[in-house]
């Protein structure tokens, strides 16, 4: 197999599932997901096959592509009834941000993810989380520490820097 084919196949196998989820959840259009994903990979392969941060590059490209297509089709993201393009764009941006952060949480290891869930989203205390998970408080604290650090790394990798 020539280099190009291998490179594309590798990008597709490694990042395809994540891209598909992101595109699906940002567009809610099952018919277009695979097309968009393939187009994203082809563009990135052509423009920056050796990019240091391929995941962020793929996601940024997907974002551009989805926004362009929304504009071209005059569609509204997530069926929101919005009037002007700028508003529609920012709604789409929010939808994408949401998907990206949720994807990042999905990439955390399970025992870190559940700590984020209990401490942040369910507003439990360290003591309550300790009981819920069945580990000592010290473990909850150190998992919280590593969860936050890893999440930062994952978000950076995905190009979510705000």
């Amino acid at each position, binding site marked *: 197999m020539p280099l190009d084919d291998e490179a594309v196949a590798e990008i597709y196998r490694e990042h395809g599932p994540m891209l*598909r989820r992101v595109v699906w959840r940002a567009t809610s259009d099952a018919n277009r997901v695979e097309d968009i994903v393939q187009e994203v990979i082809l563009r990135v392969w052509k423009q920056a096959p050796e990019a240091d941060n391929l995941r962020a590059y793929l996601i940024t490209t997907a974002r551009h592509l989805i926004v362009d297509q929304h504009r071209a089709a005059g569609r509204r993201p997530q069926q929101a009834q919005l009037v002007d393009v700028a508003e529609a764009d920012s709604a789409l941006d929010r939808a994408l941000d949401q998907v990206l952060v949720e994807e990042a949480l999905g990439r955390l290891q399970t025992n870190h993810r559940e700590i984020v*869930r209990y401490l*942040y989203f369910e507003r439990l205390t*360290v003591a309550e989380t300790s009981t819920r998970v069945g580990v000592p408080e010290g473990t909850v604290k150190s998992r*919280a520490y590593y969860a*936050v*650090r890893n999440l930062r790394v994952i978000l950076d990798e995905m190009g979510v820097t705000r």
Partner: protein
Amino acid sequence: MTTGSDDLHVLLGAYVLGGLSDDDHRAFSEHLRSCRQCQTELGQVSGMPRLLDLAGPEGGPHLTDTPVAVPAPLMTDHDDEHLVTLLGEVARRRRRRRAWMSVVAAAAAVVLFAAGAWLGPQLLTPTTPTLPTTHVAAAAVAGSQVRIDIALVTRGWGTQLDVNCEDMPTNGELALWVIDRSGRATSAASWRATPAGYSRVTGATALRPNEIQALEVRTGTGKVLAEART
């Protein structure tokens, strides 16, 4: 339960996420005033709550007990099919891109021929991008400056060979030779050189792509201009 002073750094995580007891919160706040390391790290993750708030109220599908609601067909294993489509498209775009190897060498003498570009055997049906296609760039041999890109398209009857040539000799005959794994060479296409030094021809061989060891473009007198190993 409080934490010993040696372990105070670790409280940074729950400090950011929330959930520290009052005692721990006070202890960490105090520690933070004097600990450079924690100040730096806090600077890197203090925006985390704002980012987490971008997720749905419960943190999204990965955090709740309901799985991601993606239509099943999107997540099943059509992957290989899709990959074939994708690679077909790669082949098509790569042809357009013409990222060919080029080797500097002597130029050939110019004699004009009034031949068209589409010569070789036209055995083919139109190429569809879904067919498995492999591309090779044929490297010019020493003394030659040709640039050749060959697409190997798998067909039921063997392999279709789409050849794109540039900076070719502008006179004489040219031929594409296919060498199988046992070293046997057969001609897969022949055509006349064009004044522009550019031609696009399609050849055919009964060999499957994996049975092809090498491809050579030769002149009518048998001189090898470029070769590609698969």
